[in-house]
């Protein structure tokens, strides 16, 4: 079993126009900048991007937005300081936005990866974000029925990986990366270091079964 890929360009080659693409990261931590740059180069467009944020400054998701490659963003917090490209595209009506509470976003992604048909969460009950959704009250508490959120691809940033696709992460760079690897049909990972030896099975955070391709990209943000 060897899931290693030679370079970033080969890793993102399968992404098609109109694909849904999960992108790991929170703030500046755990974002697969190398894969995003390669995706920009590759040219896929009309993408639905699923991520916690909507990019900041001129890097990462902001680059994809600036280049007009993003048709829709599903995220919890598009208003990071410096998210100028998202704001510009949004105000011009060039990008669709679905705002999802952060825990619901993580749980919807996990549900897709875990083969569940949906879940009841108290989050958002009675608020604007529950409008149009099925709700129910159980033991006096209100819940919203939320659907799983899968994706065609996930771009993942990890610290170390092995050729079986096992991954671990550094500090708060885990964030959405493990659930996104679970939920995508094709999860592509940039690792700081591709280990020749298998990772210690006790320290694996994302088992290789959730990973389809892993590429070494030494740069740490």
């Amino acid at each position, binding site marked *: 079993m060897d899931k290693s890929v030679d370079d970033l360009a080969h890793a993102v080659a399968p992404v098609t126009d109109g694909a849904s693409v999960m992108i790991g990261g*929170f*703030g*500046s*931590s*755990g974002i697969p900048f190398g894969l995003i740059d390669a995706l920009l180069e590759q040219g896929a467009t009309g993408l639905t991007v699923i991520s*916690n944020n*909507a990019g900041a400054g001129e890097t990462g998701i902001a680059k994809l937005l600036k280049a007009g490659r993003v048709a829709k963003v599903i995220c*919890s*917090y*598009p*208003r*990071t300081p410096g998210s100028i490209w*998202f*704001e510009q595209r*949004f*105000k011009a009506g060039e990008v669709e*936005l679905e*705002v*999802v*509470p*952060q*825990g*619901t976003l*993580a*749980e919807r*992604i*996990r549900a897709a990866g875990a083969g569940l048909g949906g879940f009841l*969460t*108290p*989050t*958002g*009950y*009675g*608020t*604007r*974000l529950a409008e149009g959704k099925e709700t129910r009250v159980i033991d006096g508490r*209100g819940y919203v029925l939320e659907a799983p959120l899968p994706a065609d691809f996930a771009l993942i940033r990890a610290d170390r990986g092995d050729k079986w696709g096992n991954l671990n*992460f*550094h*500090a*708060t*760079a*885990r*964030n*959405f*990366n*493990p*659930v996104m690897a679970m939920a995508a049909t094709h999860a592509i990972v940039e690792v700081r270091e591709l280990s020749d030896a298998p990772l210690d099975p006790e320290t694996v*955070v994302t088992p290789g079964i959730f990973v389809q391709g892993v590429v070494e990209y030494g740069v*740490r*943000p």
Partner: protein
Amino acid sequence: MTVVTMNALDDAQLAARVAQDIPDGSYVNLGIGKPTHVSGYVPDGREVIYHSENGILGVGPTPAPGTEDPELIDASKRYVTAAPGAAYFEHSDSFAMMRGGHIDIAVLGAYQVAENGDLANWATLDETYPPAVGGAMDLVVGVPTIFVMMRHVNRDGSPKLLKRCTYPLTGLGVVSRVYTDLAVLDVTPEGFRLVELTPGNSLDAVQAVTEARILT
């Protein structure tokens, strides 16, 4: 509205006041903005464990310059350190902690708080501005004690403590206590009840800048 000069706590004083009410051994989530300052004012002898939604329990102090780890940040995207006893985890686990009732106290900022405990802190009525909710809705449904920390009134003098919120809600009936620069108020089944006034302020003066009735 009559302009009244009142004694107002500054942000540091307000953070210190909130910190007084966080018991030893609590698990606490601090929202973005003013609440992040609370961790600097924990009274001696108390150990408080801070949760940050991006996957760390045991957020430590700001790192010394030059020692920052770009992959070790908090929910405000500031560089942090890991305190002794810290743990890292991924997002679905992090929100299981929040929604599942494992965190004791969350301290949040707010646009508006209503006397029935409704909270509005994620969106205004300005539709041209992209809405951004983050983790606020998960926190308020899951954490049993929600402290709100905010200015008592808006910059234009309009009240933030209302009979009913006019902005989109974050959660219904979720706020436990409100700390403002002018007063501390509990949310009770009857409405806002005064806990204390910032020294030097009168109840009448504070009531005058509060839409909802303040019970004593």
